[in-house]
């Protein structure tokens, strides 16, 4: 589904992605973790070309993202992206937020799109909040609308960039619950997160990154109980001790 081959990216002098090789199969749930600045957010932002790569091959759903000539609209329609800061459109209701892309990009008629929007919002537990504006919703509710916004495009892949990092602790679980359900339904997911409990429960694999490189790839069980790398060991001990 997603394939990184020798991918490299620089921000000026800074080598933010260093020789990335990674394959994600359909239906897999991959959690990416690592210290600040390890390049994990950059990694998933490259998948739908929110950030371009300079070297290597990045193939998503058989389409070449690294090729500048590729029309990204088709690819982006198949990928749902959830941001750390939600990025909901403040001037639209929850229903408006989730239906704008299906209507304008997938060209679904408005009535059908709204029906789909209502179903998806109900699925994430916000059936009562369809006509509310983002300002009227809590952080956890806003993030769930953001997830619904991605789901309404009926994507093949869902990407999450630290979806719970900006939430107050009591709201983290409502978002993780939605993500857990998605995983159980077989969605292909890549999640950048610090939520290790989530990773342990739901991920097929954990990718540990540091300094722009993939240091370790293992099953959650293996990584959390017996990390192979020193940096992996350090990272785990630093996040598990508070």
């Amino acid at each position, binding site marked *: 589904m997603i394939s990184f081959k020798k991918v490299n990216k620089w921000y000026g002098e800074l080598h933010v992605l260093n020789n990335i090789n990674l394959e994600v199969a359909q239906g897999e749930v991959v959690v990416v973790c690592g210290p600040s600045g390890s390049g994990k957010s950059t990694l998933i932002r490259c998948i*739908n070309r*929110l950030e371009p790569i300079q070297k290597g091959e990045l193939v998503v759903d058989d389409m070449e993202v690294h090729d500048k000539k590729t029309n*990204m*609209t*088709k690819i*982006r*329609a198949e*990928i*749902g*992206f959830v*941001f750390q*800061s939600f*990025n*909901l*459109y*403040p*001037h639209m209701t929850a229903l408006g937020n989730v239906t*704008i*892309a299906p209507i*304008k*990009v997938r060209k679904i008629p408005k009535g059908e799109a709204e029906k789909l929007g209502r179903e998806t919002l109900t699925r994430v537990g916000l059936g009562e909040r369809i006509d509310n504006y*983002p*300002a009227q919703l809590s952080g956890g509710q806003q993030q769930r609308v*953001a997830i619904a*916004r*991605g789901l309404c*495009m009926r994507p093949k892949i869902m990407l999450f960039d630290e979806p719970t990092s900006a939430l107050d602790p009591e709201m983290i679980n409502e978002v993780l619950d939605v993500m857990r359900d998605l995983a159980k339904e077989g969605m292909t997911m890549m999640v950048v997160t610090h939520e290790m409990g989530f990773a342990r429960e739901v991920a097929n694999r954990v990718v540990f990154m540091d300094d722009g490189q993939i240091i370790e790839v293992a099953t959650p069980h293996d990584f959390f109980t017996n990390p192979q790398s020193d940096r992996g060991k350090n990272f785990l001990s630093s996040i598990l001790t508070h």
Partner: protein
Amino acid sequence: MWSFYFNELIRSLPFFLKGLWMTVAVSGLSLIAGTIIGSIWGIMRSSRNKILRSIIGAWVDLIRGTPFLVQVFIIFFILPSAGIELEAFPAAVIALTNMGACFICEIVAGGIMAVPSGQREAATASGLSSFQQLRYIVLPQALRTILPPLVGQYVLIVKDSSVVSAIGVVDVTRVGWLTVQRIPEGLMVFGLVGLLYFAICYPLINLSNVLERRMTVVATKL
């Protein structure tokens, strides 16, 4: 003597009202045209096309760096020698429209660039095209930032319209100038002129302030 002049002034009121109408006409036309043209320029100014940005930026800078009076003279006196015959009124509207458009361009571009980049990222990520992003996501939000200074710019357009009296357009200022030749009470005559401008500008300034307060409230709610 003073009361004689005062009576003469009252008798001249119709003349002043005609001048007021001229001021409204010149400002109004320029305001509408300037908003349309300025908005288009503003959208171009905030695009990713560097060439487009620079060309518009250079023109805006030229207009902002020279006095409006000089621009009016240039349009009125120089264009005819390039073959475009102009009367005072059209020249005035062209000059005022052009100047208004330049300032409105900067206001619109500023509003567009003030929309958080996360909004554009979310729109890009869901596959919306640049045009769709502008139309459905960016412009509706930019409007909040744009409206108060836009109304402020309208006030400036009305005030700057007084300058076109220099090429003979018979607006309120010109009426005052003509009147003071026969009623040599400058304080009274231009006091009246001031009052007439005040009647238009003061409400507009207040509108701009009210809009600014309302928009700020909405923004903090977000």
